[in-house]
């Protein structure tokens, strides 16, 4: 018994020593090491999962020491893959919250010869990021689809699960998932082709709606939940897609017509106004947190594709009173003429101060446009500027965290092919920190991963509605929405007056 005890003790000491060996002597390298993903000089949330990475420096062995305020984690590796134990990481981040932390990277270059690279200093914010991000995973094909789904990832761990996969719903297409104020209990998503309809998930209740009416050119497309949670602004669109022949370009998605409508969830009614259903291309609505101002983008009427690269969208604002169903005047906020570029995906921060948007050479569907970058409009000072987070490749669809401190966006900077999720912190002055890639347990995860992360939305907790329940409802016929009988124009682009004697089947 005694021998056994000693054996365990010695073994334990050996394991401890092997894990925490010290480097007696080493040379220094004046540069920071190359690591992938690039987690250098970043600001990270205090609740993020371990930022595992690969050291891209030649060596026989590797050692990384994470230090912050008396806390220390040491990770050793034979092949440069650094995987940080999650429990230690959590304690470490807790200690470093609101302060800096350092990474000292040692690489063994030869027999007993170690080199220490220049210390990497990161900061840990005191504000946590929303715990989950929801996105669609889809292949990089363009027209067809097969396996796809809406997924959620717990940002505090590496857990990822499908909210709904289309294996359950006859391999149909699903898109445009959206949440009301980052609330996982207020979600919607569209189903296309088979089992078509809009799924509304609110506090455990699941409904399937058909938001298409004879007076709208399509069912609701791009959504924006009203902060009150009882209305959703949609664009209705006629969307087309073309492919470029030239090497530098790939796909071009465009609308030949688009208008705005508002869907009243309780009344199950669609309404619009001549102000937002004009011949122009009104698109991508987004609410101000005050619940009155509605921002959207708008471009001149589509004529033909010959001048596709001159179609540029302006940023517009109108007001809508959900109680009186009254629309205000439409006013330009920022025009394409002023910026020289096309504005798209406007999103107002939760406190209403900033409006983040994407700008590119032309069009609004920027996920295929390399010139696409993120910009920030300060609504209090009427001033806009390009964010620091951009790259040479596509930087597109973004979403705010519930407190407006963090945002997530999709970028193709890593390989030019697949959109990946990047996170950044925005300070009071509107300056964004260097973005960091969604961490994975295996830092080589993205090397061979072929699916695109699409439409990332930050939410404050997991979506609890079960896939089974959503799918059961998806198989039912959708409830058709009615078109507001008080509105005398349609949303078939051009606000054609509805004839009084025309039958309105859904009224």
């Amino acid at each position, binding site marked *: 018994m005694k021998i056994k005890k000693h054996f365990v003790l010695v073994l334990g000491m050996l394991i401890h020593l092997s894990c925490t060996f010290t480097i007696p002597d080493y040379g220094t390298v004046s540069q920071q090491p190359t690591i992938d993903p690039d987690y250098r000089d970043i600001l990270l949330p205090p609740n993020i999962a371990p930022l595992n990475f690969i050291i891209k420096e030649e060596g026989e062995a590797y050692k990384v020491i994470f230090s912050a305020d008396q806390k220390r984690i040491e990770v050793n590796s034979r092949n440069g893959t650094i995987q940080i134990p999650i429990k230690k990481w959590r304690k470490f981040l807790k200690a470093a919250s609101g302060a800096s932390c350092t990474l000292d990277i040692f690489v063994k270059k030869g027999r007993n010869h170690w080199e220490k690279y220049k210390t990497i200093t990161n900061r840990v914010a005191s504000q946590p990021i929303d715990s989950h991000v929801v996105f669609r995973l889809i292949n990089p094909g*363009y027209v067809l689809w*097969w396996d796809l789904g809406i997924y959620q990832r717990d940002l505090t761990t590496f857990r990822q699960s499908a909210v709904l996969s289309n294996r359950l719903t*006859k*391999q149909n297409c699903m898109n445009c998932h959206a949440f009301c104020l980052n609330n996982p209990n207020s979600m919607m998503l569209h189903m296309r082709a088979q089992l078509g309809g809009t799924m509304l998930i609110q506090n455990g209740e699941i409904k399937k709606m058909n938001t298409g009416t004879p007076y709208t050119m399509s069912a609701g497309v791009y959504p924006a939940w009203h902060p009150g949670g009882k209305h959703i602004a949609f664009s209705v669109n006629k969307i087309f897609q073309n492919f*470029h*022949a030239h*090497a530098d370009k790939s796909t071009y998605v465009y609308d030949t017509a688009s208008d705005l409508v508002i869907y009243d969830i309780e009344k199950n009614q669609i309404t619009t106004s001549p102000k937002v259903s004009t011949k122009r291309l009104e698109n991508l609505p987004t609410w101000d947190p005050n619940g009155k101002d509605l921002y959207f983008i708008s471009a001149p009427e589509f004529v033909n594709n010959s001048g596709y690269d001159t179609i540029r969208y302006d940023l517009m604002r109108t007001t809508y009173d959900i109680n009186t169903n009254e629309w205000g005047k439409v006013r330009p906020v920022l025009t394409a003429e002023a910026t020289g570029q096309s504005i798209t995906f406007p999103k107002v921060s939760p406190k209403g101060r900033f409006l983040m948007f994407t700008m590119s050479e032309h069009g609004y569907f920027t996920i295929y446009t390399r010139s696409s970058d993120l910009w920030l409009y300060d609504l209090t000072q009427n001033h806009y500027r390009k964010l620091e987070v951009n790259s040479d490749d596509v930087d597109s669809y973004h979403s705010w965290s519930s407190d407006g401190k963090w945002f997530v966006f999709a970028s193709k900077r890593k390989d030019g*092919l697949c959109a990946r999720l990047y996170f950044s912190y925005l300070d009071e002055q509107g300056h964004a920190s260097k973005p960091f890639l969604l961490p994975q347990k295996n830092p080589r995860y993205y090397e*061979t991963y*072929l699916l695109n992360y699409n439409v990332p939305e930050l939410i404050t907790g997991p979506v609890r509605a079960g896939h089974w329940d959503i799918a059961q409802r998806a198989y039912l016929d959708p409830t058709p929405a009615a078109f507001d009988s008080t509105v005398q124009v349609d949303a078939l682009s051009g606000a054609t007056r509805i004839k009084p004697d025309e039958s309105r089947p859904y009224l």
Partner: protein
Amino acid sequence: MSNKKAHLVFFTAVYILLFLYLLFISKPSLLYFQFQPAFYFDTHFLSGLLIYPGGLADGLSLFFFQFFYQNFVGSLLLASLLLGIVLVFQAQIRILFQEKTAFYVTLIPLYFLILLYNDYNMPLVVALKFFLVLLAAVFYSRSGNVIRIALLCGLPVLYWIIGGWFCLFFVIIVLAVHLSTRTSLISFLLPALFFLTYCLSAFISARFIFQISLKEAFLYIIPPKFYYEPILFKITPQFFALFLSVPLLLLLWRIKINISKKFKRSEKSNFIFLYAPIITNIFAVLVLCSIMLLSLNRDEKRKIYISELAATAQWDKVLAEAKRVSAYDRIVEFQTNRAMCFAGCLLDSLFCIEHPVGVDGLFLDRIIASQIAMIASDLYFDLAHINAAQVMAYEYLTKFSYDPRAFKRLVLTNAINGQFSKAEKFLNLLQKSIVHKSWAKQHAFLLNEEKLLADPAIREKREFMAKRDFFLHSKSPNLDMLALLESNNHNKMAFEYLMAYYLLECKLGNVAAHLSMFKEFDYPSIPRHLQEAAIMYQSGARRIGSELIADFPVQVFVLNNFRQLNRIIAKNKYDAQKAMQFLKPEFGDTFWYYLISGGAERNDALKQRKVESLY
């Protein structure tokens, strides 16, 4: 001969027969070409196999199936698996009935398997899962009640490995095992419990664990993509017969034993009974041979072979094999058109073959579908229409993810486009495959601009690819061809496809308008069909006073043929329909005959299809 030796001789003969049949007649490499199985030692690929019941066996089968690219190895593996099924079934009968001579019975499931594999639309995984189930059934039959109950508890694991359909098959065999041994309460109780566990496993999987439909949970056989073109896997009566054969044979064998016990006689003295096993075994092997030879879907085999030949640029063989296909197939026509182009005779021999779908046999993607996307990509790559080839490869990947052909194409197109990080991604994936690793190594040079330009084939693509941007016109590919010719007027293939398009669309004005471009190429003489179209145009243009084609010499024999054609039509009082029967023998391979017999109207048949897969 002792029973053991008879065993050995019989099964060795069956194995050799299977192996030779597969190697020389059936050719597993064609099965490989049809399915393009690939196995990657990649986290995402492997984890994708774990997210549905049946995925593990699918993965295991993919691992073996990938080696079928070598006909010899494929024959060896498939013959071994098929023999394995026979041996395991033999073991089952021996365990249940202590019967050692009934070789012929064990061949019956093999008959159905051969019938099914002879259609080239069933992946290896069906035979593999069938084998695994029989193996599990043998284990079950040998075991006592305690182990059987342990197996009952382990059924969810088996369900997860092999999927719903095969798990149900196992449960049915369990029932048959019990019914064929003795009928007691346990004969019904245990199978009932197995069935209940199967149902629960399937329901719980769909409800709580995996994101799959109930149908998939209960009855998953193979991945759904194989139910579509070009594979078109179907659940046929033979398929049901395969699965029913095992339990039915077990039950019938029990009946046979009971009967023979009742009518026991002195077998040794009877000549027929003495030689009956040998005669029946020889008969069983003869039946096997007949099934092998008679059920082989020769047309399907030839179609796949043609695609394989096209993939390896053996154009003369493509043309030879295409002539032997009995029923029309759009892919065969498409590959024949390609082959004629590479053989330099497209504009001379285009109308030597039938074009029932008109221009849709020349360009496949006017109606897009994943199943034709890869072949469409092949043509665009030939034409140096790099972005179109790339778009099609991506579209193909949507349904046929991890297809190595698509990965290889995307390595090439991205490298030609100078997008090396994208090319590297696909090279990384190919490096994780045992079979395609060497290709990836050989093509690593594509990531280096200088080395890439040293490759003449790649350099040619760079020269011919679109220099000016335009939108791809999959519905009007002539516009793409014109744009490619605008980028480089030496792109002979683009010219030939442009002219072939106009000929098939019977657009004489367009042929006339672009005819002068032929001078850019090294034709020994003006292609026959262009002459035919030009004469037709000239005669029409003269009548209506349109501009004539200048400087376009027509050969005398073509002119004489045209006169003869007009004579026959005139003889039939200018009734073209009436004249057809007289025209076909002499002019059946001319543009004129194509035009008179319906011309461009024929692609309407394709447009009217109701299902995407009906191409």
